[in-house]
Structures are given as C-alpha cells and as structure tokens.
C-alpha cells in the first residue's frame, strides 16, 4: 500500500509537471489564424484559381502573343543555358507552382489534360474520370482524397487565340482542332483542410500574389541575360516596342483583371 501511494504521488507530480505547471500548449498545424474555420475551402479554391486564370490569360495574350510579334521567343527549353527564350504558358504556370511550393502554406497547383502535348501531363485513373466531368460541365469539381486533403479541378479554357494556334500547330500535339473557349485541360489545386477562414484566404491570396510576382521575375532574370535584352519597365510588347513590363506592372494588370471575380467569390455571389 505504501508503495502504491509513493508511485501515485510520483505520477501526480509528473502530471502536474506536464499539464498543470507546463508552459502553453503547442499550436496545432494549419491553425495559424485565430478566427474560426467555417468557410468551405471551395471559396478559397475559387479565389486562387481566379487569380491564376487571369494571370495565365494575360501572360499568354500580352507576353507570349504580343511578345512574339516584337521578336521575343518562347519554348520548352527556356531554362537551358544559352537559350534565349521565355516560358510557354504551361511552364509559366509550373513556375508559379514551384514558387508556391517554396512557401510554407501547403497550397498545391498542377496542370493536366487528356490530350496533352507533353505525355507526362496526361490525366490517368480517377483523375481522368474527374476530368471528363469537368469537360462536360465546364465547371470545377471538388473532392477529398486521403493523404492529400481537399482537391479542386478547374477547367482550363482556351482563353486567348495563342492557346489554340500554338497547340494546334505544335509537332507533338495529339489534337489539332482546338477552338477558342474549349476546355483544353484542368488546373488541379490541393489544400490539406476542408474548411478555411477569411484570414486564411487573405493570407493565401497574398502568398499567391507574391509567388506570381516571383514566377514572373524568374522570367525577367532570364531575359536580362539575353545578348540584346528587351527594355524592362512600364511598357508592354503590344506598344510595338521590344519591351516587357516589369514585375509591378505585370502584377498590377493581373490584379486589375482578377479583382472583380475574386471579390464576387469572397462575398458569396458565386
């Protein structure tokens, strides 16, 4: 009996040491924001996708499309040393995923299709089934998957004439009759939780804007090493000059275009 009391006392001391006098609890992961997590994560997905979709359209139309007309080149091999090219739209998106991945927020972004130029972008298995639904409905679908959390698949529309012409003319394209506004593929987003908060959405959008700026900056860094680099500043290629907008000008254009859609998403009209 005496031994029992002794051990009960020891255990009580340990409990007091660990729980009663212990320092504050450790924060749990993804609970960095103080407000309640009661917003469906689909709202966050709509907002981040709107920003990316507008960036993609502006990049394709104003940087690639207009840039080619003033002598800029774009290709799959843009990162190779000695190659004086910029990223194709799909590789610009991959640059954004790379910049997102570097940041602590666990937001994942990917691009795929069922008629890909690059066969490693082919949707397979369950994702191929989901993709068919997205093509038919032209609407995003949301799901959850163990180990991945929440997943959103958004249609990737042929939003600029360049999407259609470049894919139709590409030597490795398995489909040559794309038309404007076709669903050419899908952007897939992943996030670990199924609910979110307004603070978290604001933080994620901020992160995405920063990542987008850095993705574009990676292109500008490459350009500045060209033998004859274009002028980087407020001017866009559609002015007819051999010029590229700087990071601020690019981001401003994207934000101007994307803001109305993000706003309607956030106030719940979508």
């Amino acid at each position, binding site marked *: *009996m005496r*031994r*029992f009391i002794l*051990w*009960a006392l*020891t*255990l009580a001391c*340990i409990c007091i*040491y*660990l*729980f009663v006098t*212990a*320092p*504050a*609890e*450790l924060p*749990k*992961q993804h609970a960095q924001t103080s407000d309640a997590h009661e917003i469906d994560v689909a709202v966050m997905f709509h907002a981040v996708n709107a920003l990316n979709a507008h960036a993609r359209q502006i990049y394709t139309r104003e940087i690639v499309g207009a840039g080619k007309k003033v002598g800029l080149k774009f290709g799959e091999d843009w*990162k190779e*040393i000695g190659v004086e090219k910029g990223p194709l739209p799909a590789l610009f998106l991959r*640059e954004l*995923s*790379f910049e997102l*991945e*570097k940041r602590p927020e666990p937001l*994942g972004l*990917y691009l*795929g299709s069922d008629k890909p130029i690059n*066969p*490693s972008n*082919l*949707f*397979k*298995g*369950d*994702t*191929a089934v989901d993709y068919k639904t997205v093509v038919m409905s032209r609407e995003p679908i949301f799901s959850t*998957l163990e*180990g*991945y959390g929440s*997943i959103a698949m958004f249609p990737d529309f042929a939003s600029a004439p360049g999407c259609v012409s470049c894919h139709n003319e590409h*030597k*490795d394209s398995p489909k040559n009759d794309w038309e404007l506004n076709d669903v050419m593929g899908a952007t*897939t987003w*992943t996030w670990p939780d199924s609910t979110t908060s307004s603070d978290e959405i604001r933080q994620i959008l901020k992160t995405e804007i920063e990542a987008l700026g850095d993705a574009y900056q*990676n292109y500008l860094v490459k350009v500045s090493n060209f033998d004859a680099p274009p002028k980087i500043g407020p001017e866009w290629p559609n002015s007819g000059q051999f010029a590229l907008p700087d990071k601020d000008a690019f981001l401003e254009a994207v934000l101007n275009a994307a803001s109305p859609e993000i706003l309607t998403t956030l106030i719940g009209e979508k």
Partner: protein
Amino acid sequence: MKFRNINIISIVAACIILIIGLAAALMAFNNPAKAFNENNSRNNTILASLSEFHTLGNFVDGHDGLACRECHKYSDGSIRQQIQALAKNALFDAGYQVDFAFRKVSSSECLKCHERNNDRHPIYRFNEPRFIEVVKILPANKCLGCHSEHNAKTVNLDSLGFCASCHSELFLKNDPLDISHAEIIKTNDWNSCLGCHDFHGNHKFKSPSLYDESVSVQAIKDYFDGGKSPYGTSKISEGLKK
C-alpha cells in the same frame, strides 16, 4: 491494487523520468538557461560533440563536414510541451503534429541546399493527385523516398525501370535517337532510360544520339551504390553550402 499493477506504473513512471532527464541533460548541458530554445543553430551540445560515436554510418559524398544540426533540427517547443502534446495525442487523439526532441528529417531540410529552379523531376510535382499510384512505386515526392543518409549510397532503389510509371505513353514525332523511343518502350527496355537521361538534370551532361553510346546499366547501378557519377563531375548547380 495488485502488486503487478504497481510494477507497470513504476516502470512507466521511471521511463518517463529517465527520458525527460536524459534528453534534458544531453540537449542542454552547455546552456541550461536556454534549454531547448527554438534556435536550431546551436551546435554545442553534448550530442553534437559526441557525434562520431552515434552517427549511423558513412555520409554520402559531399555531406561530410556538415553539422548534425543542418538536418536534425530540434522539434518545436520545449521537451515539456512536446511530452504534453504527445500525451494528449495518445489519450485523446488530439492531433498535434510534433516529434519528440528532434524533428523527423524532411525534404525541406534537403531543399535548403538542393532546391533548383530547373530540376527535371522536382519532388513537388509528384504531390499531384494523379501520381497517387506512381508514388507507391517511386516515392519521388520526398527526397528520402529515393535518397538516404548514413549509408554512403547515392540512390536507394533496386530497379532502374521506374521511368515506366509515367513515361509509357511517350511518343515523339521527331525522335532524336537512332533506335526510336517507341521501339525502346515496345521492348520494355526501361533500364536504358537513365543511360541518356540524368533524372534531376543537375549534371552538365549531353544525351548521346546513338543508343550504343548510352551509359551502361552497370555504371548506373554503381553510381546508385555510391560510385562515381556516369554523367560527369561538372554540375549545373551544386548544393548551396558546398
């Protein structure tokens, strides 16, 4: 209360006290006032100074000279907070994500030196849900899926044929190789891929256009086992801290 129950309680209590005591002594010996602070750069603990006695084996090429703490970071919080969280996890399934004393080594530690913006197979791409089946065969969504430390090996994979998991649909309208890629795929010659393609693309290596000039399967296996790189020693980018 039965004698047997007392025994279990005493063992559990003694173990807890022992673990707390040992961890505290080993980690904070030189700096008791700042015991377990979050500054992971401290390297003057007893553990570090005795590293020769407890490292698990040889370093991989290029990692010798790294301090333990470059990869083995202290877990968040104090030892008490960690035990508190782990106990709550065990009792109430509380969902804290914390390790005891040291964090599990994760890809982010590797990427601090090895992240490159032109990696041909960056790990994050394998986090895409459509690769769910692929990562079961080739766990390339984590650095430690294929690489490890303290065993002097460069790559811990037994087979070279993993390219089949993603590239079996490959078709090239303008094939640069003398034997077509379609032929290679048709004959399931997946061991040959790495003979021309450097997986991460970090070596200055030009793919040959003749199949017979590709790197032999044996040379690649030797490289996996810690031998010299068949893609040459000159690199496009080195680990940052080198």
